[in-house]
């Protein structure tokens, strides 16, 4: 046997402070009416830092700072100068990428291989992409003189903390808005390091404000009278509540919510790549991915063989220390999320689906869940309908392309879908019919700043990325 020795990435590159304040008007400040909470490493349950919890007054301070910056500095600033600040931020992110990647893995639990090779390169690329738009807005297709909206309230999830921050902040700033961003309660640390990067870039005070906290802080932010724009990424339930909260207001809203994507494998698929795509589709980032390919729809004629290959491949997944460079599956982000995954998988087993995981030793401390597949799943099972947001794949079968489309679309969600086939005309036929904002054919979970991302139906509205991503932050 060829055993890989531990290959831990050094965490010495990260300089953690014992506690962090709120980042308002260019400075770290203590909360006025909030308390504090702890951010822990989900792989060890070790406390990483004490984090300020922003209360309503803190949110108000942040929104006022953003308003002032919008009116006095950022709004009037020439687009080419806004661009330069964004380019500067992109460069600093590249320069400090190791530090950011390690911190992301510490706080989130995701493997360093992913934070290093996926998250961080995409974060920098996103700032680069939107930096270039800042002085070209009249050419973006939204009229000759599109205007920013003002102050954007942005609430982001814990699955890609820094990447979601980039998806929110880069287009908002490029379009001329200022922002108040609330990172997820379990993963605030890279956002706070990003605040330091804003300082390092000499970004004018108040253009970016980071208010940490939990759901109540987020609610205070999106409901604040002073915000013109609300952007949220997270669960469909919270998205629904936000849509209700902004009803009747002037606030423009974009939502990027849940998903239950079908990954459809035909009998003529390039099978080895399809198996990689299935694995990447559901086990990337522990399945904490809104566009995860959580429903495998495999053509009956090859179902047995695909599953055999999939199981063989799953047995190779290396679960463990997120900072080990050879780890494929890291920690579940929180005890709460782990409980939800357990609840849904227990329901899957109780409802009669067959559960399988490769032999997989889970560390004693921290939050872990072995990569799991369910076979014998039907459309009626909860695990085929509810978003699990974990490393759990439900396997269903189909006989014809039309049946595949019908099953794939039979969900209130519509974020993404996958198609695996060597037949071009069938891929295009399927792509036309799948009600999903992103269709990956013979690939999966690919992202790019130029490529619009967002859902149909209850997966939300609006697009992030590309020219389309600007629309959310312009008065059009």
């Amino acid at each position: 046997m060829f055993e890989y020795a531990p290959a831990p990435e050094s965490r010495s590159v990260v300089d953690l402070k014992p506690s962090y304040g709120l980042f308002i008007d260019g400075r770290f400040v203590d909360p006025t009416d909030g308390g504090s909470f702890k951010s822990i490493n989900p792989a060890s349950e070790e406390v990483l830092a004490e984090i300020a919890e922003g209360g309503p007054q803190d949110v108000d301070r942040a929104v006022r700072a953003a308003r002032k910056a919008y009116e006095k500095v950022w709004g009037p600033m020439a687009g080419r100068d806004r661009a330069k600040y964004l380019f500067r931020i992109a460069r600093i992110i590249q320069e400090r990428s190791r530090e950011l990647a390690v911190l992301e893995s510490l706080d989130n639990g995701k493997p360093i291989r992913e934070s290093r090779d996926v998250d961080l390169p995409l974060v920098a690329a996103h700032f680069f992409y939107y930096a270039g738009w800042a002085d070209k807005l009249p050419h973006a297709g939204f009229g000759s003189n599109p205007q920013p909206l003002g102050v954007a309230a942005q609430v982001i999830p814990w699955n890609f903390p820094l990447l979601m921050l980039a998806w929110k902040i880069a287009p908002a700033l490029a379009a001329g808005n200022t922002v108040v961003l609330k990172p997820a309660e379990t993963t605030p640390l890279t956002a706070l390091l990003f605040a330091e990067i804003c300082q390092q870039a000499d970004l004018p005070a108040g253009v970016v404000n980071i208010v940490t906290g939990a759901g109540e802080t987020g609610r205070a932010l999106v409901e604040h009278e002073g915000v013109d724009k609300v952007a949220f990424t997270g669960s469909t339930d919270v998205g629904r509540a936000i849509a209700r909260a902004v009803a009747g207001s002037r606030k423009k809203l974009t939502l990027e919510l849940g998903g239950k994507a079908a990954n459809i494998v035909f009998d003529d698929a390039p099978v080895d790549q399809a198996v990689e795509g299935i694995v990447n589709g559901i086990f990337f980032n522990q399945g904490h991915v809104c566009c995860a390919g959580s429903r495998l729809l495999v053509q009956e004629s090859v179902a047995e063989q695909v599953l055999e290959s999939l199981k063989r491949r799953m047995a190779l997944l290396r679960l463990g220390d997120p900072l080990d460079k050879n780890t494929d599956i890291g920690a579940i982000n929180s005890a709460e999320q782990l409980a939800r995954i357990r609840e849904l998988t227990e329901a899957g087993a109780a409802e009669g689906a067959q559960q399988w995981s490769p032999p997989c030793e889970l560390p004693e401390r921290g939050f872990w869940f072995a990569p799991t597949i369910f076979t014998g799943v039907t459309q009626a099972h909860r695990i085929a309908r509810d978003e699990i947001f974990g490393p759990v794949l439900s396997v269903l079968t189909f006989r014809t392309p039309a049946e595949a489309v019908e099953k794939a679309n039979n969900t209130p969600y519509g974020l993404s879908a996958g198609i695996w086939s060597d037949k071009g005309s069938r891929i295009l036929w399927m792509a036309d019919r799948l009600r999903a904002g992103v269709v990956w054919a013979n690939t999966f979970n690919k992202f790019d700043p130029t490529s619009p991302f967002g859902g149909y139906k209850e997966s939300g509205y609006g697009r992030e990325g590309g020219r389309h991503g600007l629309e959310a932050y312009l008065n059009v």
Partner: protein
Amino acid sequence: MSERVAVRKTYKLFVGGKFPRSESGRSYLVQDSNVSLASRKDARDAVVAARAAVKGWAGATAYNRGQILYRVAEMLEGRREQFVALGVPGDEVDAATDRWVWYAGWSDKLPQVYGGANPVAGPYFNLSAPEPTGVVAVVAPEAPALLGLVSVIAPAIVTGNTVVVAASPAAPLAAVTLAEVLATSDLPGGVVNILTGRLSETVPTLAAHMDVNAVDLTGVTDPELAADLEVKAAENLKRVLRPVPPDHDWSADPGLRRMTALLETKTVWHPKGV
């Protein structure tokens, strides 16, 4: 010599390409005519008709949809005097006709303007294209009776959506007459469904309906009602177009917003290799 007795018109709903009376059997009087007073069930039936029409209409070629919208303009032009007789100014009918022509031309151009290839950093073909969101519930503006109505229907359907329109309660005759134009324009049944009557009866049903994909609240003048409808729409995350101010200039260039707000962008990736 006795004067000829006129044949009066019955103003009914327009659902699924047919002209049914309200299932409730009720009507209300407008300009000396009895107009159907649509019920919640009529709204429900209209959604069913609109949903049934989505597949064919969204699946039609853009060229075909453009031709049909242009055909609507032709039919409307021919019925100019009929609208004038209802009190719609001739200029407004002309503007409404021109608006159909304008939108007709967008059917096969919007996907080029609003979508396109994305230069991703990798060996992938990557294309974003707009698609219709599905069934759209529309509250038509109170006025102008015809131009306002056309200005909310045409942008919704040109891209392949189907609509259930709550006509202006005060000016339903133009709406029903427009339905007659639509019914003779090769527009498939169910693509446009028009309900007359009280907004308070039909619109909350439409806003809450879980098989409706978007609501256009353009004609809602009561801010509280608008907010309530938006709350209802949130239940299944409908796309929402908010009301326009009362002084909205309907003769101005409409831009793309009314079309793009009712579209989904689908992005397709595929590797490039040998």
